[in-house]
């Protein structure tokens, strides 16, 4: 059984974003790029599953759509423990474009479980995993907070309003994962970093697909008004203030 983990390359989540070219492009100067947090957790869980011999999972591959400059992020995934990687050599223009590239990869390589993070921390689309599943005409399970594989049979826990459901589905399928899938991201050890250098990154050239959306302009959120402080000794006044000014209490 083979698992594919789709990874996205995003600005470190503490980045103070800035824009350039008349606020039409992200200013990438000084940005530290990392594996999208949910994708990193996906990868961690995929490796945990592979480590358990009874799962029947034999390999974990990562796939990424991005130009050659994103290779350090792929190497990091290999250092964490992925067996191999695939890079589609293209500038990702929108989620539809990215999903179409990944769909081509899955058609060529065949995987049983495809894991995608629920969203990327940059464009917050929550789209690629489900789009990929629709393009492949296979099931997708969203809001996945746990994934187990026992003798090649996946058991999935998904979050629903007010609780969770344990479900099963046929393979191949796409698991769109969120919080809970793994506790802490696995960190690359020195040995992993050394080994990653010789692991293969297979290169795909992109298929021609038109993006359905285009980002026209970015803006920073409006500054909130300065904080009004209430004295700790008179904390009760806060409630009166909220009542009179926000009308919410």
């Amino acid at each position, binding site marked *: 059984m083979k698992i594919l983990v789709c990874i996205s390359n995003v600005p470190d989540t503490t980045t103070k974003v800035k824009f350039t070219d008349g606020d039409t492009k992200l200013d990438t100067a000084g940005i530290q790029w990392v594996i999208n947090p949910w994708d990193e957790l996906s990868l961690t869980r995929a490796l945990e599953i592979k480590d358990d011999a009874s799962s029947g999972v034999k390999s974990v591959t990562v796939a990424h759509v991005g130009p050659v400059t994103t290779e350090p992020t792929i190497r990091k995934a290999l250092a964490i423990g992925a067996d191999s990687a695939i890079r589609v050599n293209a500038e990702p223009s929108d989620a539809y474009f990215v999903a179409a590239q990944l769909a081509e990869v899955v058609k060529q390589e065949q995987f049983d479980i495809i894991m995608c993070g629920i969203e990327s*921390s940059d464009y917050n689309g929550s789209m690629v995993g489900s789009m990929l599943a629709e393009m492949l005409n296979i*099931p*997708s399970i969203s809001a996945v907070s746990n994934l187990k594989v026992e003798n090649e049979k996946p058991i999935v826990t998904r979050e629903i309003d007010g609780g969770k459901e344990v479900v*099963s589905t046929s393979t191949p399928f796409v698991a*769109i994962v969120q919080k*809970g899938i793994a506790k802490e991201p696995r960190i690359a050890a020195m040995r992993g970093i050394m080994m990653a250098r010789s692991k293969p990154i297979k290169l795909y050239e992109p298929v021609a697909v038109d993006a359905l959306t285009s*980002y026209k302009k970015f803006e920073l959120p409006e500054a909130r008004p300065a904080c009004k402080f209430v004295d700790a000794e008179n904390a009760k006044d*806060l409630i009166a203030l909220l009542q009179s000014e*926000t009308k919410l209490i």
Partner: protein
Amino acid sequence: MSVLVYTENWDGKFKKVSFELISYASKVAEMLNTDVAALSIGNVANDELQKLGGYGASKILSVENDNAKVFDAQNYTGIIAQVAEKIGAKVIIIANNNTGKAVAPRLSVKLKAALGASVSKLPLSVSPFTIYKRSFSGSAFSDVELKTDIKIITLTQNSFELIETANNATIEKVDINVDAPKTEVIDVQKQTGKLLLTDAEIVVSGGRGMKSPDNWGPLVELAEVLGGATACSRPVSDEGWRSHEEHTGQTGKIIAPNLYIAVGISGATQHIAGVSGSKYIVAINNDKSAPIFEVAQYGIVGDAQKILPQLVEAAKQVKGK
């Protein structure tokens, strides 16, 4: 052409979010000079369906099918796509919740319709069709053009006011062929009757500054008195002081209540990412240089354990409890 809204139901009932969607769709329909049709999947009584008319839906399409009893994203996508094609929908509006996130992207592929996700405002223009959405986990917003003939929008919960209108909606039962679901539910663990964090208009949330899981009493009480829900920061759920369902922040739940009261939360970027959509943020923290005060409109610098009981007392008086 028409604006189609998928209104999910919860055990046969709609919620405020359902009416927010219809209210929003009515405004979009106004911009396009067309009308709103609502789609309901599952068993919902006619008087409940009729409620959607009260916010501007002129037609309510109800699909009841045994194969739709289990939520299977592929199946639900198929149903919405068939209904959209049947009525010639040009804009499809869905909630940006678990269901919406699972269905909308699939629908985008099926109908080759551009998707604008986590939208919190009306479209900036309809020609070209440009939406305004959250980006970079709330540290920026962006104008995005949806370039296809059919467009899909997922609307952030609690981001749009309800607009009531005269109710003259027609209800139509629609027969649709639905395949057997490929998702099989083995077990369900569900709490009923509890206010969901994502539905709450007031949220009281605790961080590491609460010092111990034993100190949560007055925080929970404050939430109860105010009719709100409780939440927590990531370290608190990681430590097991509170359940993971309460974790708000970038990797936890992203919420947009009217009032968010952060107690003992310093306000790391990742936490703010989950709550920056809140209309008002109140911070209570003993460190006056904590970054939470930069995003809060109201603040108290001091010891949460001394402040919370005072707030509970004052809230009880105001609420007459």
